[in-house]
């Protein structure tokens, strides 16, 4: 009996994180550890121009001065990270590709298993995909079609060569290399990521998406994404992330910069499902990410939606700098922590322009022994006449050994500004569970249904194709959380 139960539990563990497999593929790797040679190695691998190498080295030298400035203010507990104990570059060994058909079948198989078809005949209709495997982009679909419309969607390593002016002008313009410990590290060692440019007046008819996959052991992933929406344009972008199930912790420190010019709109959705560690808190990704949007133009708009179900540790505050008059920023977040996961996540809305608006809807769900913190800043500058913010933070607790915390900061320097903050904390009640089960649902179905209801406002902002997947993910992440 006990053995059966154990087997059942093992099977459930495996099913719970179905992305935990490892692809057996030969990798080209940088020597372990971090020094100037590592950075030269990465830059050489990417065949980068001198200005790029220089900017990496400048960031690295600055990072060395930050040894004591690794952020500790978040409500997160983890042993000190040894930055010399990681690989900073890993790429599947493969010659340069002329077309998608030449991609290693093992890689194609990997993405297929993840539900992301890359081959022409299987592509997702209406979604262009950039697939990043460890440190390099392995494939980008629909490239040609996008090119015809003037959209640039490419690995950032390629953009450095093909569009140096755009990269030089915008890279680091929203998140400078001095921004914070992890962003500085990223500026020194970033390996790949996506670059998007939407030309003036174009409503990009396709969803653009990037799937990040960490495969190698002891490897950090440091991707860099840069999206520029020129005047009057619109783009919807989605990123997904998974990693194999491993016993050791792996570092992921990404930087994402968005720039919206006059009348432009960017919708950025994330479904983050890095390996969360096992039920005892062993393994899992350390996710330290800096995401920031600049609403530079008049009437520009940026909308962040994030569904955070993975990672052992999440430290992430997708933010908006509302510079342009009448610009607006929205942040919709679902953060689920189960077992021993910890999340400290939220947003910053910096109102600088007149009549700028922001809206924050945060849903935190905590189960097991997990801790979930919403941390948000709403700052209204002296010139931001008529600025408005609405913030709603709801926390849902499952069981009695988890924690939910809400830490809102509001700073207003303009008397005409209006800010609103609402917060609730609730538990899934026995009554709700019993009611659902009395209608024939299993306990897990009941939890999934109730939690999906709790997150509905956020999930419905996701693009249709991904909303269903996200709903399922919400249920799966909380399996075994009750009883």
């Amino acid at each position, binding site marked *: 009996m006990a053995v059966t139960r154990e087997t059942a539990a093992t099977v459930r563990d495996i099913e719970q994180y179905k992305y935990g497999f490892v692809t057996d593929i030969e990798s080209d790797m940088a020597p372990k550890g971090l020094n100037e040679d590592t950075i030269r190695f990465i830059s050489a691998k990417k065949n980068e121009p001198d200005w790029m190498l220089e900017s990496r080295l400048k960031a690295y030298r600055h990072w060395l001065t930050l040894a004591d400035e690794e952020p500790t203010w978040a409500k997160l507990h983890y042993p000190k990270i040894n930055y010399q104990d990681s690989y900073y570059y890993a790429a599947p060994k493969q010659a340069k590709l002329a077309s998608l058909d030449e991609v290693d079948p093992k890689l194609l198989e990997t993405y297929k298993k993840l539900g992301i078809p890359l081959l022409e005949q299987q592509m997702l209709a209406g979604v262009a995909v950039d697939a990043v495997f460890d440190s390099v982009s392995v494939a980008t679909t629909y490239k040609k079609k996008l090119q015809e419309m003037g959209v640039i969607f490419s690995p950032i390593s390629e953009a450095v060569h093909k569009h140096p002016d755009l990269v030089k002008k915008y890279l680091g313009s929203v998140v400078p290399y001095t921004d914070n410990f992890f962003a500085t590290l990223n500026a020194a060692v970033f390996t790949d990521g996506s670059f998007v440019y939407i030309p003036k007046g174009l409503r990009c008819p396709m969803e653009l998406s990037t799937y990040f996959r960490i495969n190698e052991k002891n490897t950090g992933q440091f991707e860099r994404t840069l999206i520029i929406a020129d005047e009057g344009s619109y783009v919807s972008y989605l990123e997904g992330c998974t990693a194999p199930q491993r016993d050791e912790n792996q570092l992921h420190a990404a930087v994402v910069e968005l720039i919206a010019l006059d009348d432009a709109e960017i919708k950025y959705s994330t479904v983050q499902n890095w390996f969360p560690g096992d039920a005892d808190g062993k393994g899992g990704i350390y996710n330290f990410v800096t995401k920031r949007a600049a609403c530079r133009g008049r009437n520009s708009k940026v909308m962040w939606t994030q569904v955070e179900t993975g990672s052992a540790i999440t430290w992430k505050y997708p933010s908006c700098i509302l510079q342009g008059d009448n610009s607006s920023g929205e942040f919709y977040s679902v953060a689920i922590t189960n077992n021993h996961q910890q999340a400290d996540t939220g947003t910053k809305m910096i109102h600088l322009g007149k009549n700028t608006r922001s809206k924050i809807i945060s849903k935190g769900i905590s189960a097991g022994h997990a801790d979930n913190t919403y941390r948000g800043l709403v700052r209204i500058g002296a010139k931001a006449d008529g600025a408005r913010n609405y913030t709603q933070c709801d926390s849902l607790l499952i069981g009695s050994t988890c924690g939910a915390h809400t830490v809102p900061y509001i700073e207003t320097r303009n008397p005409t500004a209006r800010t609103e903050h609402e917060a609730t904390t609730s538990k899934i*009640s*026995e*009554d*709700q569970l*019993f*009611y*659902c*089960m*009395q*209608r*024939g*649902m*299993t*306990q897990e*179905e*009941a939890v999934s*249904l*109730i939690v*999906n*209801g*709790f*997150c*509905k*406002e956020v999930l419905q902002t996701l693009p249709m194709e991904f909303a269903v997947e996200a709903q399922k993910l919400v249920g799966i992440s909380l399996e075994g959380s009750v009883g």
Partner: protein
Amino acid sequence: MALLEIKNLHVSVGDREILKGINLSLNGGEVHAVMGPNGTGKSTLSNVIAGRAGYDVTQGEVLLDGKDVFAMAADERARAGIFLAFQYPVEIPGVSTSSFLKTAINAKRRAAGQKEIDAMEFLKLVKAKTKALGMADDMIKRPLNVGFSGGEKKRAEVLQMTLLEPRVAILDETDSGLDIDALKVVSDGVNALRREDRAFLVITHYQRLLDYIVPDHVHVLVNGRIAASGGKELALELEAEGYAKYQGAAA
């Protein structure tokens, strides 16, 4: 074999014994009413059969089609055909009534090895049933029970009962909080479900409901025991004379 058999059921909450040896036998096609004063164990009886946590069954058994109900979890009981219409239906914020109904129907179908209900078929089915219950069309779009009036909540319970087609339906004080018009609609809904292979256990404080849902058998539950059983006339007698004489006898 009776459809639902309750044998010598003893139930405690903490140190207190609430049910002290209940025997009831419900056959297909029958409606049994259980009446009694407040705090006498009526809700305990319905909750224990449905599988709510917090009750200790110290003796006795409940059999559905001869199968031990207490060996099943609450959801298994539901899928086996036990339905409880709640006295206080629970709010599920953010979950539309229609997606709740669909999830429930599919849970049952899956357990029976059937395929999930088709979206169009589901809508057609629900539309027909809501109309019969005098419910507004948009009600199924609203989050389940959130902001529903007393009458709407009870209609929604009957709607669920209709769609889930139980073997045994337990109505726990379904008449509470209903005005006379709503009471009539809800009762009509229940009456429409009466079938040869289905039994009802109607739990109520007042005789009023039984004017509309006419029982075959009436049982008086006092202090955790069935103090008397009879036909529908017993309900009228209780209405006229109250529970005093049974309370004396049971004490």
